[in-house]
Structure formats: C-alpha cells, structure tokens
C-alpha cells in the first residue's frame, strides 16, 4: 500500500539501483514487463496508476483490447522514442526519428497496421496514433476504390447503376489512380 506512484518514482530517481517495471497483460494472456517511463507513454496506463492509489508494484494491469503482436509493435515504438528523449531531452533528432519511423512501418502489413491503430487508440497514445493514421492515409492516397474497400474491409453496397452514375459524376477525380 505504501508505494503510491508518486513516492516510488521520486525514490527511484534518487537511487538508480533498479529501474521500476510495470506489468501489462495482453488479451492473449502474455505479461509484458515494461520500464516505467515507457509504460507511462500509454495514457491509459498512466491514468490507471494516477487514479488508483491502491495499486502496487505487483499489480498486473490487464489490457483486454490489445493483442500480443500489437503490444510488441507498440512497445518497440515507445521504447525507441524514450531512447530518443533520453539521449536528447531538448529536441528529438528529427532525421533519426523519421528514419526510424519509416523503417518501423514499412515492415507492417495493412492488417497489422490497423491492429496497431486500434491498440494505439485504446491505449491512448496520441503521438503514435497520429503517426499511424498518417501512414494509413499515405497508403490509400491515390489508390483505387477497390483497394480502399479491401483496406477497410468495407463491402460495396451500391448497385452497378448507382456506382456507374457516381463514377461519371466524379470522373475527373479518377484520373491518375495508382496501380494497387
């Protein structure tokens, strides 16, 4: 009971013998031990610890809406950003951040990207969410309607006539659409 988050963080900063870890449990039951400053980037975790005085270091916070795969991705991003922040607390090295971010999402499929967006939304990490939605926008920009339907998993509910009519109306918007 004695270790409320405020007192423990101040004690850990004064004596750096052991970094404090926070346990997060994903939907498929895996428990992640996360360094405190990284976990605190997750707004949902931060407010959980700020609002509940009776949580202890042993408390495992359940995150039922986040899969293990998404959690790996999210932690990779948060750890990298924590690293940038630690190295250069004033201004992040912009070039490096951009290089990391580009490499970071290039490996992800559209499905993985969407899963991460949902997780980032749930965990309330506004910076990551902003970044990922930007990536999603880039992926669908100048793509065909069919590609976008597949991307979002939306079914076409127009009749062929309706679709043909609309296509005629916005004909000029369809020039120069990329190959999928």
């Amino acid at each position, binding site marked *: 009971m004695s270790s409320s988050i405020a007192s423990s963080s101040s004690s850990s900063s004064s004596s750096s013998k052991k970094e404090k870890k926070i346990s997060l449990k994903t939907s498929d039951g895996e428990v992640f031990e996360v360094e405190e400053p990284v976990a605190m980037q997750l707004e949902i975790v931060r407010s959980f610890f700020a609002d509940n005085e009776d949580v202890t270091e042993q408390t495992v916070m359940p995150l039922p809406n986040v899969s293990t795969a998404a959690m790996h991705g999210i932690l990779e991003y948060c750890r990298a950003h924590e690293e940038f922040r630690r190295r250069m607390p004033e201004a992040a090295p912009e070039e490096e951040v951009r290089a990391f971010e580009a490499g970071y999402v290039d490996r992800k499929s559209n499905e993985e990207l969407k899963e991460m*967006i*949902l997780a980032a939304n749930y965990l309330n990490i506004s910076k990551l969410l902003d970044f990922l939605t930007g990536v999603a*926008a880039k992926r669908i*920009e100048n793509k065909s309607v069919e590609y976008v*339907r597949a991307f979002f*998993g*939306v079914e076409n509910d*127009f009749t062929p006539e309706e679709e043909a009519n609309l296509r005629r109306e916005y*004909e000029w*918007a369809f020039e120069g659409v990329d190959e999928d």
Partner: protein
Amino acid sequence: MKYLPREIVLDILSRLPVTSLLQFKLVCKAWHNLAQDPLLASIHFQRASENNPCLIIHCDHPIRNQLYSVELSDNEEDQRVNKIRVPIFPEFKIIGSCKGLLCLCDYSTRDSLYAYNPFTRKYMELPKSIDETLYDLSVVFGFGFSQTTKEYKVVKVVYWRPPPRDRHPIFRRCCLQSEVQIFTLGKPAWRSLGKIPYHLLDQEPSQVLVNGRLHWSTWPRRYRIGRLLISFDLEDEQFREVPKPGSGSLERLHFDVVGIRGYLAAVIHQNYGQLEIWVMKEYNVKESWIKEYNVATHVSRGLEQADWKSAQPFRNSKFFRKSSFVRVLGLLKNGTVLLEYKCRSLVTYDQKDGTFNDLAFPGMPYWFETVVHEGPSPMNELYIYNPFTCDHLELPGSTLYLDKQQVFGFGFHPCTKEYKVVKIVYYVNALRALSPRENSTVKISEAYILTLQPQGSSSTTSRSIGKFPYTIIRWVESHVFFNGRLHWIFWPLYHDTSKCFQSMSIDLADEQLREVLIPDCHEEIRRENSWSREFYIGDYVPRRLELEPDVDPSFSLSKLYNRRGHVKMLCLLKSGEILMEYKYRVLVSYDPKSGTFKDLSFPGMLNWFETFVHVGSLNWIDTLIDM
C-alpha cells in the same frame, strides 16, 4: 479482419487530398455519407491549413475556361494535375480564392460575378450592380472571408470619369469618380459604401487577406512620390493606409502585395526578373518590414524551351498581357518560395542554397494562371422538410468551425402559430472538439432564434437572444417539445454542488429560458413537486439483438453507432402501451399492465434506423402561416 471505428476513419480521411475524398465516396453508401459529414470537412480544413496549399490552374488557351487542380505534396511523384469540370460560365477571370470558394467574374461585362466551389461544383451568381454605360469604367475587386463575422464578402471598387464633353475645363484632371460596393454572400443585395480617396491597382487573381483585411497597392500619384499600401477591413468595412516597406529610394519603387503564411509581404521587382521580398513581421508596424528573400534572375526550363511561334495567339490573351514576368504565389511548408514565371512554369526557390526547381506535373497545361486555393469551408445547412409532400425550404446556413459546436431545436407554438428553429452555438477549445469526449470547457455561448416565414416574404434571418448559460448534453440527442417549450438536459452548473443533471426550457412564445425541475432520486425534493413514477420498465433484450449481437462493419461508420444510449422512449400508444427503440435496431412495445414486451417487426423494416414520432400533414411550407 479488423474494423476501424468512425473517428479513426475520419482522422485518416481528413489527411487525404480533396480529390481522393471525392473518389472514395464510391467505396460504399456509408462512406458516401461520410464524405458529406461537416465534421470531416472541418477537420480536413484544419489539416489543409497545416499542409501545402492546393493550386488552381486556370487555362484559357487554346480552350477557354479550363480549370485544373494540383495538390503539392512532399513526394513529388504523387503530384498530378486534375482537370475540374466547370459548369457553363461565360468567359471568366478568377478574381480570387478564399476559404474554399473561387470568385469568378464574367470577362466581358465585368458585372456578372460567381462564387464557386470547384470541388463540389456548386456555384451561385451574384446580383449585378454596375451601370455599364459609364465612361472609362474600371473595376477593382476584392474577395475575402471575415473570421469574426464568419461571412464571405465581395468588394467592388468602381472607377469612372464623366465623358469629356461634360467635364469642366478647370477640373479636367481630377475627375476620377469612384464608388465602393460590398456584397455579403447570403444577403440579397449590394450595399454602397460611398467614395474612396485612393486609386487602387487591380491585382487579380491573388487576394491578399491578412489580419482580416484585404490589401492593394495604389496607382502612382500625381503630386506625391511613390505608391500607397491600402487595406480594407472586412469587419468594419473601412479603408486604411498601411505602412509600406523601406524608405528613401525604395519609396519610389513599384511593388506587388502578397500574403505569405499570414504575413503581409511586398514584392519589389528589379531588372531581369530579380525580386526582393519584404515581409511585415508585425502588422501595421513600419519598422517591422524586413527583407526576407532575394530571388535572383531565373529562366525556367519551360520558358527557355517554349514554343513561341505557336504561342502567338496566346500573347494576346488576358493572362499574358497583364502578367508580370514572375509572380510570387506563396511559401511552401518546406520553406521554399513558390513562383510562377510568365504563365508558363511553376518554380520553387530555396533561399538557403539559392537553387531553383522547376515543377512539372503530368497533365499540366501549357499556358496558365495559378491561384493558391485554400480548402473548402464546411457549411452547416438547415432544411425544413415535409416528408409526405416533399415540400422543403432551405434556411440560411452557417459556417462550421472546429471550435464551434451547435445544438438545434425545432418547434411550433400553438398560440403564436409560428415554427421556430433554435440554434445554440458554443465556442470551445478547437483541439478538444476533435476528441469525441464531452469534456470541453465552454468559453462563450449564444442562442439564436429563427422564425419561419412563408416563402417569398422577406428574409429569414436568425436573431440572437443573448448568452446561453447552460451546457446541453449533446448525446441525449433529441430535445422535447412540450407545452410550447423546447426542453433540454444540461450539465450541472459549475457552482452547483449537487452534481446532477438538470433540465431547462426555452418558451417559443416569449423566448425566455427557464429551468425545469426534474425528478431527483436522492433527495426530498421529490415530494415537493408533482413528478411521480408512472411506469417501471425492467431489463429487456429484444430477440434480434440476442440473435445478432455483432455490429455490421459498415454501420460502425454511422453517426448513430457512435451515439450513446441503449433505449429511446418514443411515445405512448393509444392502447396504453409504451413504444421504444432499442439500439437503433428494434422497435419494442411495452404493456405496463401485464409487464410484457413485444418486438415489433414490419415487412420492409430497415436494419439500422433512428425513429422519430411525426404527425403527418399536408402542410405546405409556403403557406404554413395560414394553418
């Protein structure tokens, strides 16, 4: 397959160029509606202002009235030119672009003006106001949007001279006559603002709107050195002189006025296409003019290789004649200056290393004029509609902003026999408004009332009834009209310690706000007022919700899906049963006598819906006052 919720889809879409948004209307019906959502338009508009501008390219050679759009993006390969289908206008010139609208002018008469949104292709023709027979007539236009009054305004400065035979021999020289006229979009007529003591220089198609004011330079004056810099405030409609850059020899030079990222800038042309760009860092402070850019002589590839022989007819065109060799269009996100060279090339200039980069896009016309175009400004449109007669009436709309939330109410008062629309506007923190949560702190609020007039009678405009001190809970979406009053539930007032929701009403006859007691489950008040518990409705899950609890992905994009609320009580039926709507999917009637629920289903019933109790009538809107 994962499905993204509505607010995230909106977020992603808001990052796309307008052309992609139009194209994605074809994805499915839900997206078609989403593209018309004013929320999307307002986030999109906000984002667009952080990005590079969209360019509108006007081409009138060899075919007249051609418009194209280009979205400048970081990735040069993504850039392309889209042709815009233009409605049938007479031969036009672009007067300016402001907040999503282009102002076009009939080139031959100078008196037919159009406000036109090139992306939705909606347009409106403005009334005429000039006497075309005036001698030596010339018109200088201005087009802008006032952030304070939220209105688009067109300014027309008309100059003419009395015909030579009417001139008095002594006053032969100072005989220039002028009249300033102003038109507010949505209003019926032009207003005259009287004479103007300055002879403004026409600078279409770039309007310089900085600090809510339009700017022009003047013609050289006869008895004094140099030109003036004149502003017109769109709010108070006054002309003022603005300090111009430099002193001494600089005073004499000719300059163009441009707006650069919200600052007023002056472009001084020197020999061989060299430019100096001065920026006024602090508005209206003469000392704050600073020379920011020096642009060296540059001959763009397009001009070098231009086919001048075939351009012969173009040399007589309206663009070519009036255009200077190089025009400054603005500043891009990466800090480069965007320039147009003699109707032929778009070029970016990087001040850091002094390099020029000729922009070329597939589909670019050969000779053209460029206008920097801001994204469209979303409008909130209101209609009154009788679903049975299909009779409808459009009410004056209002521009939507992220920092503005609106709540509407609608009712008919039996004594005054008038339909009234109530609009409550909250001005809130713009960033908070993006988040779906209801925790934004309200700064200012105001309520407006609009009384419906029969069509044809004079203006339907809303009147303000002053401040509105309550924060209405918007997710309890429908207001209740009862006893001649509209009722809403509002959040507890700040100083109120009871922390429970309360109710208030607006009386449509005397237009007063009153608080209404609501039942309080915790305190004694219940005994003191006339509230009594009539019905108790227990838990119930309709069969359809039990069988298909999952949400169909396309519905997750709907506005209804994102609303809270599980059960909505609709009305009491004649049989004494209560009619309710469950989760926008099932209509249920409840019999309080037996305590039984019955799911109602009709052939042709929709999957997802929102129900309103409506009294059908043949009340035609244009005669509604007589009923």
